């Protein structure tokens, strides 16, 4: 793409790449759905010496998610990028988009801890650039903020991996898991765990390490927000799962350590505090960015239960939340394109001017609340079930209680969009272009389709949860 130096050609190429990736990911998913594990040795060097790409149901589920979102968002990019990014940088944008996608997919498929770091950096560096391409000057500041925090996170991760390498002499994740129990009384294991946990938590924006996220989402180009919100944090959750349930699970390091309560506390804090902050935002993008922080809390809450139901809830919510937020940010991008802003005080009456966009936002908002027949409901069902299974009824009420906060912020949009008289500026707006509306509505419909037909998502998540809990093989 850099060679081509043409925006249109770069876009075409990016579409081809994303769709091919989706096809491959779907093929892989089908192949491992039966419980197979695909192992590919780079340069034919057998693991643990060479780098191994190892794909089980967890990896495949994630790769499918990332490539699905990428394939939809890339179509949407065309109009959105044309409006928000200077023409001479289009080819750079698509190059970065492709790099970011390959980084994220690389994380999803690799079985090697250091290779994972490399991919993490590829995706992170390209996402800093993507965010900085936002037309608001504050995008630079947001990208810088993300750069600093993201780098700290990546550094922490690599320190942790370094410690593990010193202890076990291997970088292959499966091999590491096998060797770790032998050295688990060593205190460095604990240090490694701590570094990796904090490093990854920064990347996945776990409360209170989420500070980079709202600005980055609010000021990045709309297409970037949609893409990153739906994929980047999700991939980090996967890395966390991989380390907790594959690498460290056999080492006995979690015994006698109050990790679950810490995770539960932080998750609850995310769910309530971030939702409460979201309610008071004036910028709708920021509002949904804070909502993302809260939804990540749902994911980590499910994970921290450590049960089949809990993990299933967490993993299926990866997908469900990605689809929901993807839809929301893509639709918001339509408003940003036409109006230039998504502040509440500017978009009054938008429901009349851009009916499809606004109604789509309401529908995706319902999914965020967790109304039945949407994907949000499926996640919530399993999360509450997992809480009840633990015998913690109060946690069940906490889960549903925090979704009431989502009702509040979604309804803020409803009232502004439908009850205010449109300003002259809003009244003359046209509906978003079809090339943006169609992909966005595809996501909205996905919110409902996967809320009713949960075979792939729930089936995949359930299988992934069981495979993770079974531990390394």
């Amino acid at each position, binding site marked *: 793409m850099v060679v081509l130096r043409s925006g249109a050609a770069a876009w075409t190429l990016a579409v081809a790449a994303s769709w091919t990736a989706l096809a491959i990911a779907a093929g892989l998913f089908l192949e491992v759905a039966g419980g197979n594990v695909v192992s590919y040795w780079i340069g034919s060097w057998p693991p643990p010496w060479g780098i191994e790409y190892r794909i089980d149901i967890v990896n495949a589920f994630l790769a499918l998610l990332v490539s699905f979102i990428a394939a939809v968002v890339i179509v949407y990019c065309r109009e959105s990028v044309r409006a928000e990014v200077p023409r001479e940088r289009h080819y750079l944008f698509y190059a970065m988009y492709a790099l970011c996608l390959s980084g994220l997919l690389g994380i999803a498929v690799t079985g090697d801890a250091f290779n994972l770091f490399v991919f993490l950096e590829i995706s992170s560096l390209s996402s800093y650039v993507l965010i900085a391409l936002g037309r608001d000057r504050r995008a630079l500041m947001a990208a810088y903020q993300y750069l600093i925090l993201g780098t700290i996170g990546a550094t922490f991760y690599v320190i942790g991996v370094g410690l593990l390498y010193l202890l076990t002499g291997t970088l292959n994740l499966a091999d590491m898991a096998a060797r770790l129990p032998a050295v688990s009384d060593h205190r460095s294991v604990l240090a490694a765990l701590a570094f990796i946990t904090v490093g990854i938590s920064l990347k996945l924006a776990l409360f209170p390490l989420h500070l980079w996220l709202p600005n980055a989402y609010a000021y990045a180009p709309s297409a970037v927000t949609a893409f990153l919100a739906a994929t980047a944090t999700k991939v980090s959750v996967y890395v966390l799962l991989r380390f907790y349930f594959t690498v460290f699970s056999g080492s006995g390091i979690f015994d006698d350590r109050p990790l679950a309560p810490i995770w539960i506390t932080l998750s609850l804090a995310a769910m309530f505090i971030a939702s409460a902050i979201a309610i008071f935002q004036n910028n709708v993008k920021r509002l949904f960015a804070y909502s993302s922080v809260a939804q990540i809390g749902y994911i980590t809450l499910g994970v921290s239960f450590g049960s089949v139901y809990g993990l299933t809830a967490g993993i299926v919510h990866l997908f469900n939340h990605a689809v929901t937020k993807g839809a929301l940010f893509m639709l918001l991008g339509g408003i940003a394109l036409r109006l230039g802003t998504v502040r509440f005080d500017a978009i009054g009456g938008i429901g009349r001017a851009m009916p499809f966009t606004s109604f789509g936002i309401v529908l995706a908002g*319902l999914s965020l*609340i*967790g*109304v*039945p*027949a949407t994907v949000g409901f*499926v996640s*919530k*069902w399993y999360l*509450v*079930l997992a809480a*009840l*299974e633990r015998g913690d*009824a109060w946690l*069940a*009420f906490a889960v*549903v*209680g925090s*979704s*009431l906060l989502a*009702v509040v912020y979604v*309804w803020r949009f409803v*009232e502004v969009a*439908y*009850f205010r008289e449109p300003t002259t500026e809003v009244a003359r707006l046209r509906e978003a272009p079809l090339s943006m509306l169609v992909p966005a509505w595809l996501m909205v419909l996905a919110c409902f389709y996967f809320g*009713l*037909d*949960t075979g792939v998502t*729930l089936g995949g998540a*359930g299988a992934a949860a069981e495979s993770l809990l079974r531990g390394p093989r």
Partner: protein
Amino acid sequence: MTAGTLIVGAVAVPLAGAVLIAAAHRTPNLRETVTLVTAGLLFLLVASIVPDVLAGGRPHQTLLPVMPGISLAFTVEPLGMLFAVLASGLWIVNSLYSIGYMRGNGEAHQTRYYVCFALAIASTMGIAFAGNLFTLFLFYEALTLVTYPLVTHHGTEEAKRAGRLYIGMLIGSSILFLLVAIIWTWAIAGTIEFTPGGVLGGNVSNATMGLLLALYVFGIGKAAVMPVHRWLPAAMVAPTPVSALLHAVAVVKAGVFSVLKIVVYVFGVETISGMTSVDWLPFVSGFTIIAASIVALRSDNLKRRLAYSTVSQLSYVVLAAALLTPLSVIGAALHIATHALGKITLFFCAGAIYTAAHKTEVSQLAGIGRRMPWTMAAFTIGALSLIGVPPAAGFVSKWFIMSGALQAGHYAALTVFVVSTLLNAAYFLPIVYSAFFRVPGAGAGGGDGHGHGHGEAPWPMVVALTATAASSVALFFFPELPLQLARQLVARSPG
């Protein structure tokens, strides 16, 4: 057509109607024709399922499996049958009335109104025929959401506030309590299918049972048991036909219907009748009956008075269900029907008075019976039905409920019914008296100068309110169909 197709059709027909109504938005006459035809077709569909159910059949149709063990499925049982016949039948009448009302008052956004109405009926059918708690919950939430644009129809600041209360209380309570209760039921019983005799028997402790019941009763905000009743009076800002069909029939009845259905098919009357932890329910619902009646007595706004009367009457059904005797459960089922007919008549009258005379307060109604004899005659029948005086249908259901209270030996409940009957009389009869026997005095002068001009409301409205009043009387003389259905409801649950 198989029974399964008929059931799915009952949900699909109003949905398709909604699409057609939206498509016909340019030609109001065609749009209203579509509404009426859809309503008629739906009623025929629903009615055609009745013989099968009466013969003991329980048509079942699974649409699609949603999660392992949980599917979107419909099963028709007697109670749902009764509710569906009622809602679909009254939709025809109400559509007729709507046409008169919406045109008579020159309301805006009429297409949106008819579309949402059709969607609301589709959701109601889904609730009536739900085969399990998931399906019930899905359509329950859908009903709240599609009626929101109806409640906030006028788009005023007041409507917006009412809408907030409406969404906040209904969605809030259902997510916070009902959803947890459903998942809890699933966790305990491993099934959420509606099963005769209940699914919770045998493995639930006394305390858990009481807690679960509380989650269900307060989670179903549509049943408006105090303190989750505030949304209902607030929702009266909606156009009157909305208040009539939705907030006297479809929405609120969906609430008490769900409570009754859950008591019968999830808890099982037999299972909880021995449990002490559920004894609070008669007192809470009894309190609601009395307290709401007193508020109604003190309200001068006619629709507000009717709304609080609804809150009170809904708790009749809840209390009757809570008495856990066969007779009271029959009474509860019947009361869903009889109160619906009575209350929709009263709302129709209130709307007719508003359209013809632009009066909204009780104190303005002196002498209005002379100008609007049909309307006020219907009002009288509706009021008698709610008080429980023959020859109006309300007497029948009240008879069964009170017999049930006697059978249970629950004298507190009996007292509640007697006191509430007196209160009902106290807040309805003065309206009837002043409408017919007082001359419009100087005190009611506000509309007087204007008042000389008006007669009855537009004819579709008068036809509609006469029809519902007449069916209220008819139901008194011919209660066989609902009675048979209600009896089957009890016969199915052992004991």
